[in-house]
């Protein structure tokens, strides 16, 4: 019964390194390298600010990922509530001390970087709920009193992020929380109730939406409504991707991004840029890389013996999938433009940090797959 503990205690550093998921590791590294090329292209084929900064961040956070993965899974289990609370405090901090840029207050200024706590909250909420559902038994999951805490833990940060306003991130945070609850066994009917409540509150919520957010939703429904205004991004993104064709226009030859037709090409529309230059073949390569990462994360979940590990890995894999799907759906004109970065590829420190933290914890689950968390 205590045998696993003894196995764990006998694990040497070498054992730890050897039990890492190398396919996952390589995929992340490959994606990082691809993202550097993409960033180099957004800088107009020069080794410029965005490229340097992106490489530096990827280097630092990849290292962080490796270090995090060596931490015992028990450590993450024990600190998850603490992390959640810490992230929540940071979110509150944004509300009072945050930096405002293009009409929304999302960032906290640390000397070395501007941190976006809402990105970290994506991981924090998953960790917190994974621990919560690990602790309660399957029978208790659907009791009303045990539903209370998860709902509060989910709604509170989401509301804070919505108020920034940052619709995209808040939806992604909420979806992460919903995923954990679903996996833990919360009954379908509760999701149904929540949906009904959400839909009935939507008209009220719309009244609180900023005009630009309203116009984005309307624009998604009909991009030609205002081709020079809100619909511009979707139309130009589709033109860029479509004009890439089968093999693309070639590295550094994406006219749409070069001539500034493509908006936000460093961040949300990085996939568009890559797709324009490398065509269908390149897009497919990226899609496959992401699929591999997601499948490896699910695989870790399958191997992990603790409920915490399983819940975390599956949820994170799903959340990761959602980030990718929302971003691609957005740039391909399948979803409204909500402002969701593409994991690892997009420029942005906080997003990179959060994703690497998430991946690190998953890798830790892999190394300590047989170790009980408590």
């Amino acid at each position, binding site marked *: 019964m205590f045998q696993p503990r003894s196995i764990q205690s006998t694990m040497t550093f070498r054992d730890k390194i050897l039990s890492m998921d190398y396919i996952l590791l390589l995929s992340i590294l490959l994606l990082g390298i691809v993202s550097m090329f993409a960033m180099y292209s957004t800088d107009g084929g020069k080794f410029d600010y965005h490229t340097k900064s992106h490489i530096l961040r990827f280097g630092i956070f990849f290292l962080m990922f490796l270090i995090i993965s060596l931490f015992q899974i028990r450590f993450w289990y024990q600190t998850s509530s603490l992390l959640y609370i810490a992230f929540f405090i940071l979110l509150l901090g944004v509300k009072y001390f945050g930096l405002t840029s293009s009409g929304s207050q999302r960032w906290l200024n640390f000397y070395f970087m501007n941190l976006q706590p809402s990105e970290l909250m994506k991981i924090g909420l998953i960790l917190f709920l994974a621990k919560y559902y690990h602790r309660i038994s399957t029978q208790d999951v659907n009791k009303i009193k045990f539903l209370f805490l998860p709902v509060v833990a989910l709604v509170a940060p989401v509301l804070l992020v919505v108020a920034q306003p940052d619709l995209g991130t808040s939806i992604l945070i909420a979806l992460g929380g919903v995923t954990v609850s679903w996996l833990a066994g919360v009954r379908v009917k509760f999701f149904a109730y929540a949906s009904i409540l959400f839909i009935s509150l939507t008209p009220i919520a719309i009244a609180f939406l900023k005009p630009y957010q309203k116009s984005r939703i309307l624009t998604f429904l009909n991009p030609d409504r205002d081709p020079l205004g809100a619909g511009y991004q979707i139309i130009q993104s589709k033109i860029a991707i*479509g004009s890439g064709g089968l093999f693309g226009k070639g590295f550094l030859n994406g006219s749409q991004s070069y001539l500034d037709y493509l908006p936000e090409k460093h961040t949300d529309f990085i996939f568009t840029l890559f797709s324009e230059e490398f065509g269908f073949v390149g897009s497919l390569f990226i899609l496959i890389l992401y699929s591999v990462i997601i499948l490896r994360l699910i695989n870790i979940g399958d191997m992990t013996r603790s*409920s915490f590990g399983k819940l975390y890995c599956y949820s994170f894999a799903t959340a990761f999938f959602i980030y990718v799907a929302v971003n691609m759906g957005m740039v391909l004109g399948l979803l409204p433009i909500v402002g969701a970065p593409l994991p690892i590829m997009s420029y942005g420190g906080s997003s990179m940090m959060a994703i690497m933290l998430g991946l690190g914890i998953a890798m830790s689950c892999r190394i300590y797959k047989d170790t*009980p968390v408590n």
Partner: protein
Amino acid sequence: MINFGSGNTVIKSKLISRRMFVLTAAKTIVFCGIFGRLVSLQINEATKYKTLSDKNRFREWKLAPQRGVIRDYFDKEIASNEKVYQLHITPENSPNLETLFFRLKTILNLSDKRIFYLKKKIAKQKPWEPIIVSDNLTWSEFSRINLFLHELPGVEPLVSVARQYPDQSTAHLVGYVSQVSQKDLQNKQYLKDMSVGIAVGKTGLENKLDKDIIGKVGFQRYEVNAFGKRIKQIQIDPGETGKNYRTTIDLDVQKFTSEVLEDKAASVCVMDIYNGDIITMVSSPSYDPNSFVHGIDKKYWNELITNDKKPLNNKAIAGLYPPGSTIKIIVALSALENGIWNPKKYLNCTGVTELYGEKFHCWKKKGHGPMNLRSAIQRSCDVYFYEVARLLGVDRLSETAKKFGLGKKVLEGFIEERAGVVPSTAWKRKFIGKNWYLGETLHSGIGQGYFQSTPLQLCLMTAQIANGGFEIKPRVLVNDSKNNLREYIKFKNENPNEPLPIDMLVSNFDLNPLFRNQENINFVKDAMFAATNEAGGTSFRSRYNDQKFMFAGKTGSSQIKRFTELQRELEIKQKDIDYKDRDHALFVAFAPYKDPKYAISVVVEHGGTGSGSAAPIAKKVIKKVLERDQMREQVQNLTGEEI
């Protein structure tokens, strides 16, 4: 708390895995959707999006083509291109338009109204589209701009070309160019692709040849970024200069004629009787066609349209005048051709004849005495022709007149040309709705009444009589087609005794004879000779005794206002009545008489009598034309060799 590996954990594990399976299935479906979308965008619709991407990327700027040059027969330019200095502004390159206009105002003397107009125009168009501030700067303005250029961001001084007309004498024939109007855009489809600011032909040859002379528009293709800024030039097509044209006009004769006419309201046409080449076609007074090129000055425009002598009107093809006595050659010809009159027949002119109680006067109050057809033409006896016309009838007269070129447009493509009127019984019924009176036939017989013709028509009529009665097609543009008529004349001179039946003329020389019996034509030519070269002839005073310049002509004067009995009684002279009421003076002739080459028509509005004011003009012009005949012949031979 919960033991590792306990039953509960196993149940939980299974639950999680089961629910995860559902999620994984959902993920697969979503990724398949994204995959499908990629296929649709990048493979199925790639062509469409590539086109859209290129549409984003490239923007074209049109380059105005240079207009073709129009030259005279001796390759002198009569419509050319000159260098002009222009000033353009590209609004996006100027940080502050207000200060820029303020500076320009002091440098160029721009009016506030013009500045207001320019600002309005800038507001309407894209910031990268240049706007023309001035299209014709003087050299001093242009150099001042260049001096201050470093203080004037956004300003582009440039050298361009614009139409220039070196001589005013050709103004009516060549016409002029000016800014494109809404109407031009509707009528001329090819203007749709042209660049803004291009000049379009409005009248005369400029209008007739506009489509080919305007040239092909060029373009510069630039790669532009999302803000419309030009990144690099991709392609340049300089376009094509318009086609050049050589006309049949002799600029020297044209200038000379224009000087002879001084400022009279008059018109002169000279035509080669064998190939229809128009040597000169002057309408007087003239105007400055250059004033239209850059937008006409209001004062000058008012001056032009209020002038009684109508300088803008091309009198040679758009001025309608009763042919007066010049029609008598057609009346005589028609009577002979129809066999209704014996030319030897004598009539006694007493100065007046009567028909159904109405009096018809001869221009000579005392009468000419006994007249036959030849002397009636020589002295232009009206009474004699009243009788000829009465027997001939207006319908036979109109048939002959039409055959010789009256009553229809002579040139092709001149919008200002008018057809005139050759009256007939059918014409009167159709256009006036009344029956023909015999009295009107008498008036028609001396070219009065409903008759209306242009000077060019009269010239063509004379030319076709002078060349022996063959149809020719008048032309303004040089055309090196075979000249059958000249070949025929040559053949005839070499074989003077060989008879040539009409059907042989048609088959061998592809000619269209306008006569039934050429002797009749010769009779008329001889009578015209008498009118100029025999004592008593109406134009005897304007004759040349030198064989080289000797010509044969017929005078005419067309009444504007009928003489009252009182005026007739008082023998009022033309010069004594109001200018506006004076008769038009006409003269038609061909020269040289021995071997005719050219036909001429002269019309002087309110000139009084043909012999007094039209024939002397013709005399001078004929000399000038004949002096240059040798030179013209040489050029013709030269061009012939080139082919």
